[in-house]
């Protein structure tokens, strides 16, 4: 399997995947030390999808994300210190501590939010793409959602809308096989990518453990979208190595077998990509270690910055509800 992308991009693919992996591992630690409250969904195992898609986008393209959004955000260039500060509920977080894991957004980087509602990002991506088109910009919106999303009305309505309006949207289904504990085959009768045909757009399935395959498929869809030819659906076949959410590791659930998990772990996209970099002669023995060390440093610093960020002050509790305040709004009930 050859490497077709240029070396700097190939290295960046590795770096971002590793950054996501280690970020998620930090999140688990911080949840277990009770520094992160609430519910967090890690994307360990799915890094190649986030990175393959986002590196095929331009900085001014926009993504919509999901409840399992950390990877998408990092892949799109999100600042890990601001992300961690958000997870810790601090004023220095991306959302000033208002949002937490499921709502991290960076509108300036084209990250139109993680999302707590399954497939809610699909229509949002249509609107974003319409705005680009309307303003004569050749920008693209990519919308991430899980296999669980393909049976939601929002998904179907959004695909149809994008198709009839020929919107520059790339719909990215991260098929990790399960929606919480529900296997996809038990709730869907067809291959997921074939849903595209019903709406008159191209659909394809790619190996979501191969970052370059995801990148190439996305690049084709993005080119098509930029050229005004409309939306596409890409199904990325992947796996989450960990539970649906952090707490699942203590719940001893048996909805998937150990053999299945082991088999997928053997296909881990990150070491596989490193190996290919070596085999292609792009990386020498030390290069991975150098890259990994830089990732560790970046995260250590980010955690330190996040921990130092102040808690939001109660005086700001009423901020950010409306563009301006009105008598009694939003203060009603809180004078």
């Amino acid at each position, binding site marked *: 399997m050859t490497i077709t992308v240029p070396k700097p991009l190939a290295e960046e693919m590795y770096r971002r995947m590793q950054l996501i992996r280690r970020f998620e591992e930090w999140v688990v630690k911080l949840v277990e030390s009770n520094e992160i409250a609430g519910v967090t969904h890690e994307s360990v195992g799915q890094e190649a999808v986030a990175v393959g898609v986002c590196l095929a986008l331009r900085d001014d393209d926009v993504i919509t994300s999901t409840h399992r959004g950390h990877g998408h955000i990092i892949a799109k260039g999100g600042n890990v210190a601001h992300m961690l500060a958000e997870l810790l*509920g601090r004023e220095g977080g991306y959302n000033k501590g208002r949002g937490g*894991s499921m709502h991290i957004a960076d509108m300036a980087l084209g990250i139109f939010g993680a999302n707590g*509602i399954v497939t809610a990002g699909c229509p949002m991506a249509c609107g974003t793409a319409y705005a680009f088109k309307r303003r004569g910009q050749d920008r693209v919106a990519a919308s991430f959602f899980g296999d669980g999303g393909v*049976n*939601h009305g929002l998904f179907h309505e959004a695909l149809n809308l994008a198709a009839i309006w020929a919107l520059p949207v790339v719909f990215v289904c991260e098929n990790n096989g399960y929606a919480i504990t529900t296997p996809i085959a038990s709730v869907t009768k067809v291959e997921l990518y074939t849903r595209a045909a019903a709406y008159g757009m191209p659909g394809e399935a790619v190996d979501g453990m191969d970052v370059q395959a995801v990148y190439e498929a996305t690049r084709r869809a993005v080119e098509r979208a930029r050229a005004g030819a409309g939306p596409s659906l890409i199904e990325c076949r992947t796996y989450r190595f960990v539970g649906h959410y952090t707490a699942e590791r203590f719940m001893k659930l*048996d*909805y998937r077998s150990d053999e299945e998990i082991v088999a997928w772990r053997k296909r881990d996209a990150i070491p596989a990509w490193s190996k290919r970099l070596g085999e292609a002669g792009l990386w020498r023995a030390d290069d991975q270690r150098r890259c990994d060390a830089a990732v560790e440093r970046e995260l250590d610093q980010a955690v330190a910055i996040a921990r130092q960020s102040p808690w939001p002050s109660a005086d700001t509790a009423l901020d950010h*509800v409306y563009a301006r305040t009105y008598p009694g709004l939003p203060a*009603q009930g809180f004078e």
Partner: protein
Amino acid sequence: MSRKTYRQAVSEALRHEMRRDLRVVIMGEDVSGGLGAPGEQDAWGGPQGVTKGLMPEFGRGRVLDTPISESAFIGAAAGAAATGLRPVAELMFVDFMGVCFDQIFNQAAKFRYMFGGRAVTPLVIRTQYGAGLRAASQHSQSLYPIFTHIPGLKVVLPSSAYEAKGLLIQAIRDDDPVVFFEHKALYDDEEEVPDEAYTIPFGEANLTREGSDATIVAFGRMVKFANQVADSLEQDGIGCTVIDPRTTSPLDSDAILDSVAETGRLVVVDEASPRCNMATDIAALVAEHAFGALKAPVRMITPPHTPVPFAPELEDAYIPSPARIEEAVRGVLAAKR
């Protein structure tokens, strides 16, 4: 009688009714879990473990794991209800009403009326609500006033384990669509709960404390806080009546008006956003029918008019606290007319 958690109480109510009535079926996302996995065990049993064990006992024909298609399965539950079954559908978090509301408020709620009284829709929608678990803006809301607003729906807010079991059995036996709100911060609360089936009628408030100085009306988890406040004020010789209306629709307005007629002072505690919520509804009720009895302006203790914040500091300040309730009761007692 034995000590049971709120979670166990809800679970027992489901089990009783499924044993008693073959028409009772359950549907929702991951209510059993692991659909298609080998074996006949639950893989999950729902987000709070409430439905765990039901699939092994009653089979996949009566305990249905659904796709993430809320409009479809809640609508299907409504359809099945109107044609002979008694489904209990689970909307994992009430915040997801946004993706299925038509089937609830334009369809299920209105069948009886629109069809000239010739339809019966014994549907129960169980759902989690409420703040306090750092679940942020889309998984923490208290949206019961929106459902209360809809003619045809009944809305239930069990405030404890005992209440949860009796009210859920009533809901399943009821012939109208019922939205059953389980507070996510109450699942581990325990109290004595009968082992056998019992019902608690809708529209009959529960007076959890009795006193003649002030009336506190509270809903769901706020009943617990109101009781704490009443107990602490009792130490200072202040007697509060705490009213848990149990259902916001129907609403036991007599219990509230009778109590206010006696105490002349009212504090309403509502976890829902402050505009057009239960607190404003009850304040209006009392202003209209018991104005003469009031010795002080009504106080409404609610969150501010903001989404639910994630940061622990902000969320703690957001949720009506016992301290704010106590301050309000002292305030109405101090007020002079």
